[in-house]
């Protein structure tokens, strides 16, 4: 399997890998290890003059290099953004950007589902 430069870079570095702890951290996950792909996001939000912004995001993944790279990219892009269920780019754009084989599109949907679950958890926490 060949990987493009972007995939290789985010897979090799994966600087946003890890977990967040403490108050105000929302967590969402999707997929399963048993099925071969599992992704989790942790998000921490700060309230500032400009409203709620993502202060930090981390990911964990049991997944192929493409999925790890995309999850790492999503976590990297998140800081400073307003929390929203949509990824910074939709999965088809991400598929093209990372040159993910079409048969792996379902794995990118798991990344998207994990992100949405984290945002949902954040919203629920805010409501409570």
């Amino acid at each position: 399997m060949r990987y493009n430069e972007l995939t290789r870079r985010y897979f090799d570095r994966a600087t946003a890998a890890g977990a967040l702890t403490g108050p105000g951290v929302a967590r969402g996950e999707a997929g399963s290890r048993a099925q071969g792909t599992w992704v989790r996001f942790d998000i921490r939000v700060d309230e500032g003059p400009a409203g709620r912004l993502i202060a930090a995001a981390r990911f964990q993944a049991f997944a192929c290099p493409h999925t790890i790279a995309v999850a790492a990219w999503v976590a990297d892009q998140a800081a400073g953004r307003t929390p929203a269920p949509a990824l910074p780019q939709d999965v088809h754009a991400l598929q093209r950007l990372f040159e993910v084989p079409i048969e792996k599109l379902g794995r990118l949907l798991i990344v998207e589902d994990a992100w949405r679950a984290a945002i949902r958890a954040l919203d629920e926490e805010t409501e409570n």
Partner: protein
Amino acid sequence: MNPPAYLDYASTTPVDPRVAAAMARCLTADGVFGNPSSTGHVYGAEAQAAVEAARAQTAAAVGAEPRDVIWTSGATEADNLAIFGLAQHAQELGRHLVTARTEHKAVLDPCRELERRGWRVTYLEPGRDGILDPAQVAAALRPDTVLVSIMHVNNEIGVVQDIAAIAEVCARHGRTRLHVDAAQSVGKCRVDFAGCGADLMSLSAHKAYGPKGVGALLVSRRRGVQIEARQFGGGQERGLRSGTVATHQVVGMGAAFGIAAAEQEADGRRAAALAERLLAGLAALEGIARNGGGVRAVPQIVNLSFEGVEGESLLAAVAADIAVSTGSACASASSEASYVLRALGRDERLAESSLRFSLGRFTTAAEVDRAVAAVTAAVRRLRRIAGVCATTN
């Protein structure tokens, strides 16, 4: 950066320089370039002599008679010739075969094709160690069983089947012939075609420091084995494999097998020491399971599963440092875990997260150390990304 260390000798080997030199002498006008079938002149006669010398070298290396050796393009062709050739010859006696789930595709796919044509095939399940009990073979034999096909050394996990005991079972049954895929065997363990009681045996040159594109099927003349040809046009190789014999290829195979037989013990000792070094180096990692191995295995093949890491990512993470094979047949959404490891009872995820390290004549301790460092770093990093701590098996 240095190229990755090559630890995939079970996939293929580089041609030994001594073999390459022997082959080169058969290519150009100042060498043995004639058609070995054109024996009416000196060029053809020289080529024929070179082919027959290679046949004798090959036979001697595996305990066969030169007349048993039928040159082929490799072990896959030899497997096909053995299975279809025997099936066609013996179909009036019966239409049942026995093989194992852990065989190479070059055996399994012909068996499946015969099933499609109405034959019955029994697929034996080896134990969790990869070893078949000869009693399993005995239990599978039926009055209409005409062929048993069992590999000698498994290409993924290195275990060695007790061919002599299986041959005894077949002989007791009467008319059942035994075919052995020994593509991985030469140079890794002793091969004794006549002594083990097999009727047919497939061999490959490129697994033993010979060239790709050449192999042989041994057909025991002493045991009166008969098969039907699959290829026609010239009647070469006792009419079983027509086509001009590639002198340089078979000379390469003969030279490679001669060297392999002479250096097998020394190669084996070196490989065993390197395998121990690899296993000792990786011992600090928890959650590793050895696939195969043990007493009945060649030292050159070490297959390990790593808990808590995804297979494709593991391979990608070590690819810059080492060239190895993985337990996943295809790195895609529909990737299929190794059917051999699945047959041993490994779950799909663990089968996919396996690496096959195969060591060879040119492997160095430094390359093994590089593999240890690369795999250790990759497994720890991927487990950290996956948020898992391995549990020991």
